[in-house]
């Protein structure tokens, strides 16, 4: 996927920006995300309802996919049924 692409949840307010990743279907709340926000939200799958956190980076286990959460919501992110994990931040000292 093109870096900078924004994907929107179809079950909640979650929105992510692609940092890098292959063409792959990302799900939120158990349903595929899309570039357009749907007119009507679907009902969240309770198995994927842990929520997203703004400003966190979400990655897959292989490290090939990285998404930045830019809007939070109730759904949680997954590829198929495998939940994405929050990437550990490696803090740098403030330089400006």
């Amino acid at each position, binding site marked *: 996927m*093109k*870096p*900078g692409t924004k994907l929107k949840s179809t079950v909640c307010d979650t929105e992510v*920006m692609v*940092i890098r990743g292959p063409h792959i279907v990302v799900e939120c709340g158990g349903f595929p995300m899309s570039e357009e926000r749907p007119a009507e939200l679907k009902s969240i799958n309770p198995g994927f309802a842990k929520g997203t956190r*703004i*400003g*966190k980076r979400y990655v897959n286990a292989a490290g090939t996919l990285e998404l*930045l959460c*830019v*809007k*939070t919501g109730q759904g949680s992110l997954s590829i198929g049924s495998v939940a994405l994990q929050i990437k550990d*931040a*490696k*803090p*740098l*000292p*403030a*330089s*400006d």
Partner: protein
Amino acid sequence: MNISLILQMAADAEPERIGLVCDGRRWTYSALARAAQGAAKSISISGSSHVALLDENSEAAAIAFFGAAISGVPYVPLNYRLADEDLAGLLNRIAPAYIVGDVKRVERLCPKRAHAAWTRAGFVAEAEKLADMAPAVEETQQSIAVQLFTSGTTAAPKAAILRHPNLLSYILGTVEFGAASTQEAALVSVPPYHIAGIAALLSSIYAMRRILLLPAFDPEHWLALAAAERATNTFLVPTMLARIIARLDAGATADLSALKAIAYGGGPMPLELIDRALRLFPQTGFTNAYGLTETSSTIALLGPEEHRAAHDSGTPEARARLASVGRPLPTVEIEIRDEQGRRLPPGERGEIYVRGEQVSGEYRERSALDANGWFSTRDAGWLDAEGYLFLAGRADDVIVRGGENISPGEIEAVLLSHPAIADAAAVAVPSAEWGEAVAIAIVAKPNHVPPDDDELRALIKNRLRSSRVPERIAMLDALPYNEMGKLLRREVRNLFR
């Protein structure tokens, strides 16, 4: 990608948190974001090709910057200290522009009314008025976020451009969103037209560290604001740090107990000064940041622990690291190359090349990136065995005498070791015999008898070698610096014409 995302995320996460303090007014992230949206509407209506700021630091700088970003128009903060003739030239290059700040000066320099000019107060009021009429965020992939005219210390100003992905990748690569506590506040006193001023806005807002904006640097005002608002972080150019310490030495008092981090950059830091600062602020972490306009700010860092380790060390090798600008950011590659473009091993001096998503290396007229995406910084330097980068002046400042490359820095270091010399510059002058030869300008310390020409020549000959001995010597009251503390070598060279 659009860098307005940074402000929007802060406003979404904690709308009522104070994000910016300027001249006594406190702006929440939500109020800033709404004003930026209103500014975007006003900019779109004007049909301008650029959004310029001709003003000191204020909330208008942040609002104009993010408003320009939302509307997809390049933001061009201008150096209001420029002489009329130089400024008029730049204004012509960005017409028709939406200009915020010194309306009278714009009207005087551009009587044909090519621009839409707003006073600071008028612009902020208009932005707040139009806040509910925001246009959709312009999301083109590669649009220009910022255009900065380089300071032109060696030639006419170039229009360096930074695209949204350059700046966004710098921020995402170096700052953790919302990492700052509500106690944290960054005192920003670098001018808005400097890359450090742009980076400070973006980094602080993304970290959600409250910005304390000083309209223009002044050591007295800096100390007062730092104490009153309990600043925890700041970025200073070495000249500013020297002036703050001079005020403290002269008896000024200020409670700086909250100050936990000082970052510095923008010019060479004298070793005596950083040593002094480390002793004066024992609880403060110092970070040396090296970067350029064309690289979206910082590309290498020397962090607080590295400063203390070097400062406390007894060995000259470890202490030498205080003069380093640190190691490259994890998201950036740095190489040293010779004049033929060959990569040099550690310890060898050459030109610094850099590559990474934050590196634009691009000017209005052309891209300066090579085929593999490397940007030649024109800074000279070397890497040590552990990957620490040391700077050795500008590649363009090298004096080429009879085919031999001479770094001004080595001559200046020897001159500065003389107890009666306060400041020194070595530059190239035309020589019929050698192509170029060395000329030096020196400034004597107050109440000291300056060395005569023979003594200066002997000093350099004994410490270096005869090719470094100056053909011409000038004694000055002060060397010419720009307001960011950069030596204007072009002006020094002109002294010898």
